[in-house]
Structures are given as structure tokens and as C-alpha cells.
């Protein structure tokens, strides 16, 4: 637990320089929060707006990104603190048929934990996404580069300012690579007066990705289908056939289903995946509900189930609170508890602050 004692220990072990750094960090975040509170709502803007980035004149170029700070007290285990993500988005469009997007990230820019002081030793650079789209029409677009693997909703929208919990469901990353590098054909078309979005993709090479993702595909072929059954209801289906770089002796098939329902400020999300092709078939999934409380506070509850290769199936409950004073900014705190979850997702108290900028 993130007890008073461990908090006291945390501040005691910090060097004066680290304390100064930490103070500056919180000052920076406070300024961001203040800016957020003053940000004009409505979602638009031609220059800089918090949560919308900085448009560079009429060049079609826009810079933006997000930052998140996380703290956790897993049990058993030492507490941990990190500036977990500092991501920079760069987008460019020619306002005709080409669109470029990149997300570069400094992960764990600043970390502290247990008996370790504040440090930058774990900082690392990641090329999260880098692709260019050629738009032919609404039905066909071709993407080339590195992109998020379209399995479920969470992986496509995993940024901390967009999620309701600090911790991520095991099912959204454990059985497949979070990124793919290659080609994607994607688009949308009407079905029964509603929109169906689709994607077919092939992971072809790691050469485009000098900062290789954790546990990448060796190669993969996949598809994702998302049907907007109503303005507030989305249903999705995923399939991917792949080989992992770190486990080239097996070829896997993964099938996923997802659903998201929104009503006023209530939300319900679920994702389930099944993978075979290894030593055993594995199911993983979660259901999550979000309910508004007073003002900008929300209550979150989540149940997770995940088969594991060398352990009995794990189960988790996550109970959290989120404070979202303005949409680009969120404070989160949650307690996670489960069975057979010591390795994948340990019990504990977790909290974070995140902002889109």
C-alpha cells in the first residue's frame, strides 16, 4: 500500500536536486491544469489549444501530444513513481489525399521507487507510430508505416488522458503485439444506415522501426471490423494470424470481440480475445463500467479474466475514481485486487495524472 510511511520515505530519500526537479514537474503540471481550466471548450481552434495542439499556420502541420505521471504501490513490492509518458504528435496533411502522423515518446523519463531515488536512468525513446495515409475515397485508404494493432478499442485509444484507469487490462496487450509495421487498407461504408469501419493489415518488416517495440510481430495478417450500431453503441470484431519475434516456433490465431456503449456520461466497455496456436488456447477479457458522480467525478469498476501460460487463470477487480475537470485532463486513483495475478497485474493502489496538450 501507498502508506503514509512509504510516502515519508519517498520524500526522505530524494536528493535536493531531485526534490527541485519534482517541484518543477508539479509546478509544470499545475500550470497545465490551470491552462486546461481556462481552455475554451468546443473542440476547435486554429492556433494552440490545450488538447488540440499547435497548428503551424496554413502549412497543414500540427504539433501536440500528451503527458502522464503515475505512482503505484503494488503488493508485495516497492512503490514506484514515473513520468511514464511524454509523447509528441506530429501531423501533416496536404488537405487533399495525403496525411502523415507520428508519435514519438520518451518513456519513463523520470522514475523513482523503493529505495531508489529520482532518476532518469530508465528513460528511453520509442517510436510509437509513424505512418502516412493515402486517401482514395471514404471506402479505401492505404496506410504505410508503424501503427497500433487494431485489436479492440483500448489498444487504439490507450493514451492515459483517454482511459479511465491508470492500469491497463491484461487482455489489451498480453497476447499480441501492440504495434504492427507494414501496410493497412482501411475505410468505411454504410450498412443498414449505419457505418461499418474496417481495416486489413499486414506486418511485414521491423526495418522501419529502429526502436523496436516490446514483443513485436515477426509477421502478421489481420483484420478489424467496427460497426456503429447506434450513435452510442459500437460493436467490433478482430482477427489476426501472426508469429511473434520472441517466439518464432509458433504461429498464432487470435480472435477478438469488443463492445462500447455510452449513455449520457455512463459508459460500458468490454473486450475479449481468444488465442490458439501455442501450447494451449488462452482466453482473456474484461468488462468495465463508468458512472458519473458529482461534478466532474466518475466511479469506475472493472472485472478482468486472463488465462496464463504457466499459471492458473487470473482474475482481477479494479475499483477507481477519476476526476476530469476538463476533457484533456484527468486525475485517476484505483485499487486493484485479484487472484493469480502476482506477475501480470499485482494487487495495489495506483494513481496518475494525464493531460493532452
Amino acid at each position, binding site marked *: 500500500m501507498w502508506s503514509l510511511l512509504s510516502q515519508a520515505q519517498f520524500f526522505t530519500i530524494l536528493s535536493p536536486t531531485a526534490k527541485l526537479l519534482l517541484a518543477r514537474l508539479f509546478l509544470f503540471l499545475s500550470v497545465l491544469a490551470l491552462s486546461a481550466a481556462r481552455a475554451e471548450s468546443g473542440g*476547435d481552434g486554429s492556433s494552440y489549444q490545450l488538447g488540440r495542439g499547435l497548428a503551424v499556420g496554413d502549412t497543414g502541420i500540427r504539433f501536440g501530444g*500528451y503527458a502522464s505521471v503515475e505512482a503505484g504501490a503494488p503488493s508485495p513490492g516497492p512503490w514506484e513513481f514515473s513520468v511514464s509518458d511524454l509523447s509528441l504528435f506530429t501531423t501533416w496533411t496536404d*488537405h487533399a489525399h495525403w*496525411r502523415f*502522423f507520428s508519435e514519438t515518446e520518451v518513456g519513463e523519463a523520470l522514475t523513482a521507487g523503493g529505495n531508489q531515488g529520482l532518476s532518469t536512468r530508465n528513460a528511453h525513446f520509442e517510436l510509437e507510430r509513424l505512418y502516412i495515409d493515402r486517401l*482514395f*475515397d471514404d471506402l479505401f485508404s492505404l496506410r504505410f508505416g508503424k501503427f497500433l494493432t487494431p485489436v479492440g478499442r483500448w489498444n487504439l*485509444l490507450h493514451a492515459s488522458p483517454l482511459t479511465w484507469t491508470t492500469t491497463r487490462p491484461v487482455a489489451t496487450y498480453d497476447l499480441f503485439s501492440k504495434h504492427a509495421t507494414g501496410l493497412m487498407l482501411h475505410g468505411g461504408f454504410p450498412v443498414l444506415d449505419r*457505418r461499418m469501419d474496417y481495416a486489413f493489415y499486414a506486418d511485414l518488416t521491423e526495418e522501419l522501426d529502429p526502436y523496436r517495440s516490446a514483443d513485436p510481430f515477426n509477421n502478421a495478417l489481420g483484420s478489424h471490423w467496427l460497426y456503429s450500431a447506434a450513435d452510442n453503441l459500437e460493436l467490433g470484431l478482430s482477427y489476426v494470424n501472426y508469429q511473434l519475434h520472441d517466439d518464432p516456433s509458433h504461429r498464432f490465431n487470435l480472435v477478438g470481440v469488443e463492445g462500447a456503449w455510452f449513455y449520457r456520461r455512463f459508459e460500458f466497455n468490454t473486450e475479449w480475445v481468444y488465442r490458439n496456436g501455442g501450447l494451449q488456447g488462452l482466453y482473456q477479457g474484461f468488462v468495465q463500467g463508468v458512472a458519473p458522480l458529482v461534478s466532474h467525478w466518475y466511479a469506475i469498476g472493472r472485472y478482468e479474466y486472463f488465462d496464463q501460460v504457466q499459471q492458473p487463470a487470473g482474475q482481477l477487480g479494479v475499483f477507481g475514481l477519476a476526476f476530469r475537470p476538463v476533457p484533456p485532463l484527468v486525475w485517476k486513483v484505483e485499487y486493484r485486487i485479484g487472484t493469480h495475478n502476482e506477475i501480470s497485474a499485482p494487487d495495489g493502489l495506483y494513481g496518475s495524472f494525464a493531460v493532452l496538450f
Partner: protein
Amino acid sequence: MRRLLLVLVLASWQALPWAEESIAVVVAAGSRLDKLSLDTAKLIFKRKSMVDAYGDRWIPVNLPPAHPLRRIFSLAVFDTLPEDMEEYWNEQYFQGINPPEVLSSEEAVLRFVAATPAAIGYVRSAQADARVKILLLVRSAADLGEPP
């Protein structure tokens, strides 16, 4: 709920006369397009539809979030107010897609749309003149079942 929101919007902005007038979704007068469905308009202004029937990239433009016509348009087309779409735009921003640019007035919309191929905006129907072509009329109050 839609009625309540509309009444609140109109009351708060004291813009009751606006509700009696249709909203015209307009493109340049020389456009090859002739009409548009409400569903397609919804996709265009949510940046889900990127390209028109002739392969040109849509350039949708909005009025400011607080503008009465923007609020009525948002309720009529999306069934929600502009500020309630913030989370949607956050998700799109993470995918590299930004909301439509904002122009300050209906006259600015008319000028921009008239001069920009594939641009699309909306104004009160009485404001639409020879510079633009009306593709869709959104009957702001009538469609929402409100009495004039």
C-alpha cells in the same frame, strides 16, 4: 431530452427567432454536388467522411462553440451540444484527426466556402446567397418537434 436542450439553448441565448429558420448546409456555387443526406453531413462534420463523391477532400468549417447557430446545428445533427463532443475529439486527436476549423461568423463561412473547393459549412438559410449552393436544409426547430 433534445427538446429540453434546445429550449435551454434558445432561452439562454435569447435566439428564439433562429429556431424558426432552417439551417442551410452549403458548398461553393460551382460545386458539382447537388444534395447531401443528413447522415452524410453528420459523418463529414465528425471527420468520418473525408472525401466527397468526386474524390475531393472535404474541408468542413464550424462556427464557434458558443455561437447560437452552432449549438442548434449540433443538437439537430448530432443530438448533443458542442462541449459534449470533447471526448470524441480527444479520441480523434489521438488518431491524428482534428475537428473542423472554426470561422467567426456566417459571413466568414460564406466567404470561405465560396472561395474554397470542397469546403462545406452551414448558415441560416436566409443568409445563403448566390455565392454558395445549398446541399441540405436542416429544419432546426421543426425537425426537433419544437413549436415555433
